[in-house]
């Protein structure tokens, strides 16, 4: 990792830490879910989507008060900046997802041991991560292109996306067990192969989105 990308990752980590109130709210909501409905799969999806949303908020912070101008006088190329956003977004979505998924599984095992089934659990939470990645690859170019001025509209769109994603995840997670079986048997594919194909599609989307974002930022003036 280059010095500039490392510095930008550090900056974004500090930025997220400075917004700890939001993370605290996240933890409280998680605790409520934990103690209440036990719908862990929904909550794991919620964490993934919210974390991808946090990445987008770092772009907003960078742009605030014409901050891009100063940022690009530091030893950072525009491509470094875009690359870091995707890297940071990937990490910020994946790491909390894995941690919360593990904790949620542990909670299930402790409090509902009789109903805990690892394979079913993994299948039921497997859709939320690609959904969060999809939100990321869709929104990063939009955020760079339209910036803070149109962020209110974007926020409405994103909240809509989040709700839609969560709704779809909640609905699909109920049906997913049978759906995976149907698709797998229809295409003659195993669950592992489906996961690989999904990972491939996500990787292609990341590359495409990154290239689009690079083009957008190269054209911008600050």
């Amino acid at each position, binding site marked *: 990792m280059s*010095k500039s990308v490392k510095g930008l990752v550090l900056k974004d980590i500090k930025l997220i830490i400075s917004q700890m109130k939001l993370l605290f709210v996240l933890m409280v909501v998680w605790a409520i879910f934990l103690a209440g409905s036990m719908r862990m799969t929904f909550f794991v999806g919620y964490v993934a989507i919210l974390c991808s949303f946090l990445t987008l908020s770092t772009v907003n912070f960078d742009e605030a*008060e014409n*901050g*891009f*101008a*100063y940022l*690009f*006088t530091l030893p*950072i190329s525009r491509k470094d900046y875009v690359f870091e956003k995707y890297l940071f977004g990937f990490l910020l979505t994946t790491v909390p997802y894995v941690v919360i998924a593990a904790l949620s599984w542990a909670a299930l095992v402790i409090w509902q041991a009789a109903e805990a089934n690892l394979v079913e659990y993994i299948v039921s939470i497997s859709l939320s991560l690609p959904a969060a990645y999809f939100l990321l690859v869709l929104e990063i170019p939009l955020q760079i292109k339209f910036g803070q001025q149109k962020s209110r509209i974007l926020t409405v769109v994103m909240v809509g996306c989040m709700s839609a994603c969560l709704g779809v995840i909640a609905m699909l997670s109920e049906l997913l067990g049978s759906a995976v079986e149907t698709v797998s048997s229809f295409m003659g594919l195993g669950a592992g192969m489906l996961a690989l194909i999904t990972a491939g599609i996500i990787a292609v989307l990341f590359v495409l989105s990154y290239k689009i974002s690079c083009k957008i930022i190269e054209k911008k003036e600050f």
Partner: protein
Amino acid sequence: MIRMDNVLKQYDNFRLECSMQVPVGQVTGLIGRNGAGKSTAFKAILGLIHTDGGTVEVFGKDVAELTQADREKIGVVLSDSGLCSWFTIRDFIPVLDTMYADFSREIFMAECERLELPLKKKIKDFSTGMKRKLQILVALSHDAKLLILDEPTAGLDVVARDELLGLLREYAENGDRSIVISSHISSDLEGICDDVYMIDNGKIVLHEDTDVLLNEYGLLKVTDAQYEKLDKSYLLETKKESFGYSCLTNQRQFYQDNYSSVVIEKGSIDEVITMLAKRRLGGKVDE
């Protein structure tokens, strides 16, 4: 260090056409009124805007081809942009330490303490002067070879301004470093710059060594009768006044020697700006 050749940038209501050079070891001032094009020129030098013509070279390279290592050698203060205001200085130190090979954490923290900048307070809660001091300290913190400072003293009180100009003079003493600086406060530039460019309406209208400007330029205040008899060969600008005429010259000594009865004021950057800018504004001027 910096070379701008016929740089052109066209906006809807403004056009920058600018050529200037900042040699190694020189402190160059860029003066002009609000909206004259100073910030646009700086942004062109920093590659923050795309130009429509001409070339901008920094360290002998096209600005678009500057590497990360090249950019580490540039320290910048911008008039309309700064560090993320949600951070504290303490948050920023590891970021700067990672990005700049020559960043000195100890010196930076000591300077923050000396300039009474709190490390744990969010930058959004800083006063304008504190924000400015911080930007200048960051620009000076990583052993840059080139400082590009757009209005670095704006918002500072007299004491803080003197303090910071002292820092810049100290920085410039090392012969291989250059500074290009803009300011509305002409005394800042008179005290520190080797030469000055004046920009007006996007064009460079004057380039002169500061010593020449201060020692050889002058403002003649003459009555109508005196004006009639005056040799006008060395007058750069003339303005009609209630008492007669104000005339800007770059040959003050000539008029002092030959017109002992004429009131002649010593040249200053303020006089030059006033006289040259009024011409563009359509002030009554004899050509």
